């Protein structure tokens, strides 16, 4: 996917002015947060599971070569064909080759962020393979020709009226204002596609090393349809999705749905191991697993390794007040919210995504909810520091910081400036709040006052009252 992360400020402004989006965001994130909090409260083992999941992931990443090697060996032994792609272009090439070799003209796809990373749909469509998104939200935005705006709820910004109009225009269905009727329309059209498709495309929530299994978690059941009915199954997954063993899976299944939507368990978990066996009633004749590096091995090497622990639950998005304010599109790439603000610069490069790490108040809410304890606020800080060392800060900011640090080096100089500030405040606003600061602080006072400097700073008043003793 082409990144517009460098345009975050502009994208965010647009989102703030979008009334329906604002209403939907408020509802959606509030609902998620509420459900998550309830689910966590109702499950006493949550913190313990969180600790354990974090340990398992840390441990797995420290020996990712071994665990991934084991996964590939076991999956292959059970009939899966495993492919490895270094970057997005190569991944698309491989996917296209698979579709061609398997003679696939139509593919149904369940939601996968990894496939968005590599623009899989575009690649396949350019090669003449039709790809239909089967997750309802994704289906809607595919019909609308938009990118998804949320890991969990991609069409969070669309109203039923817009969807009815869309279904009328694209599917020839009569208008309705009933949500169940809209769902039924999608079900009918997608069922036909599932049955006609030559290939089902899925992501993977987990890759289980000791059995070579792939785990898919969905509520709609599209993940099951697409991996049971079509004759070929193509799974696209980042190499970091591996967990050591099936015995580790329950820990993650206890965390993922609770963190994502507040459910004890999603309606459907599919554990898919290899291709159809002899005597099986159904299942794909061939299972292809396309493993993506796409920048992950580079992340593994550096100080951001722990970001690869992410299980894509979306809890950090929902808890983030910035995400709650601007939604997912503003982040300009596949991943949004705090995880996007960290992952996008690491995957597409900090020069392209430099505004994202700054798009946080460092309030820490994301770090608090992360089910695998990724230190997201620390990483945001780290990336901001990288921006400085990589020469991505404006000369103005650097000059400002140097000046500020220069003043703070000497308490006497600071006091002198504070007293000048106090005099100016008395002179210009008579000690009342300031209504307009000059650039680059002018945005601050657009809708807020700024306090006037005290006539005399505390340090001066203290000396006056108590003498110079410290």
């Amino acid at each position: 996917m082409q990144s517009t992360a460098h345009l975050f400020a502009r994208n965010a402004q647009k989102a703030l002015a979008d009334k329906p989006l604002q209403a939907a965001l408020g509802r959606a994130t509030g609902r998620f947060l509420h459900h998550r909090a309830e689910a966590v409260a109702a499950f006493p083992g949550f913190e313990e599971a969180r600790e354990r999941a974090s340990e398992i992931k840390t441990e797995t990443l420290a020996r990712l070569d071994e665990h991934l090697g084991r996964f590939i060996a076991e999956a292959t032994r059970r009939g899966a064909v495993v492919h490895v792609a270094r970057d997005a272009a190569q991944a698309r090439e491989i996917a296209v080759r698979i579709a061609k070799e398997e003679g696939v003209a139509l593919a149904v796809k369940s939601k996968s962020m990894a496939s968005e990373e590599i623009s899989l749909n575009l690649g396949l469509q350019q090669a003449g393979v039709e790809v239909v998104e089967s997750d309802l939200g994704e289906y809607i935005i595919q019909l609308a020709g938009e990118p998804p705006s949320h890991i969990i709820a991609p069409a969070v910004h669309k109203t039923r009226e817009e969807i009815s109009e869309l279904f009328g225009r694209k599917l020839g269905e009569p208008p309705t204002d009933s949500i169940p009727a809209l769902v039924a329309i999608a079900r009918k059209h997608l069922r036909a596609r599932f049955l006609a498709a030559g290939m089902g495309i899925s992501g993977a929530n987990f890759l289980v090393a000791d059995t070579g299994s792939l785990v898919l978690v969905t509520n709609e059941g599209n993940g099951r349809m697409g991996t049971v009915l079509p004759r070929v199954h193509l799974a696209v997954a980042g190499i970091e999705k591996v967990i050591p063993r099936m015995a580790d899976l329950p820990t993650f299944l206890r965390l993922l749905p609770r963190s994502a939507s507040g459910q004890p368990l999603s309606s459907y978990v599919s554990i898919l191991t290899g291709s159809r066996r002899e005597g099986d009633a159904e299942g794909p004749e061939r299972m292809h697993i396309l493993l993506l590096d796409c920048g992950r091995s580079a992340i593994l090497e550096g100080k951001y390794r722990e970001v690869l622990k992410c299980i894509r639950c979306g809890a950090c998005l929902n808890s983030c007040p910035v995400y709650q304010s601007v939604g997912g599109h503003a982040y300009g790439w596949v991943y949004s919210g705090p995880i996007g603000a960290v992952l996008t610069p690491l995957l597409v490069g900090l020069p392209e995504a430099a505004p994202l790490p700054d798009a946080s108040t460092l309030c820490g809410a994301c770090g608090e909810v992360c089910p695998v304890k990724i230190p997201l606020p620390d990483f945001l800080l780290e990336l901001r520091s990288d921006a400085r060392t990589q020469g991505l800060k404006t000369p103005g900011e650097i000059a400002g910081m140097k000046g500020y640090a220069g003043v703070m080096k000497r308490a006497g100089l600071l006091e002198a400036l504070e007293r000048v500030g106090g005099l100016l405040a008395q002179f210009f606003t008579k000690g009342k709040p300031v209504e307009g600061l000059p650039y680059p602080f002018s945005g601050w006072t657009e809708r807020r006052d700024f306090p006037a400097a005290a006539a005399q700073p505390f340090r001066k008043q203290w000396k006056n009252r108590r003498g110079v003793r410290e």
Partner: protein
Amino acid sequence: MTGVDERELLFRRLSAALGRRAGTGGAPSLAEEPPPVSGGGADRAERFRQALSAVGGVVLSDPPEEALPVLGEALRAEGVAALFFPQEDAGARRLAEALIPFGPFTLTTAEEVRGGNPALTAGFRTADAGIAETGTVVESSRGGGTLLPGLLSDVHVALLPAGSIVERMDEAFAIYADDPPRNISLISGPSKTADIEQTLTVGAHGPRKIIVLLV
């Protein structure tokens, strides 16, 4: 060709990133979770019922003569007109056939449903296991079993031997030991979506209702 080369290159990158020589094995160094503490059998069925009911599922544990009318009424209420089951699943077949008087229901096959039979259907199947922790029904392709009754139907009726309910997920996975069948499906509620205006709606792709008959 590129596949093999790329794989090797990936492992070289990983080893370099981890600052070590490529290892083998892949045995986890973390200790396994302590073995789960299981509650008693009767309580377990009750916990299963509570957990599944909490997510909108229905659990019937009455003797067959009492369960049949209730089940028949539940299916009629959902507008079900046709019933299907795996040919080799004797329990499912018996149940579906016994339900006909409580209809009107006709019998159909998975192939017909797959072929686009427009009638609303109920799909019957005997489950591999139940999980009390989450109210989950476990079905799989073990022994050539079909998943279509729980996949293509509008209402899924799962027959669950009460003795096959385990307490926790860990135990359910253990029944497949080291050789999981191609497809294991954990079902914990109806097919649902909240993708339109965050309004929970059932029957997105799969069954809009799941009914479990404890046998």
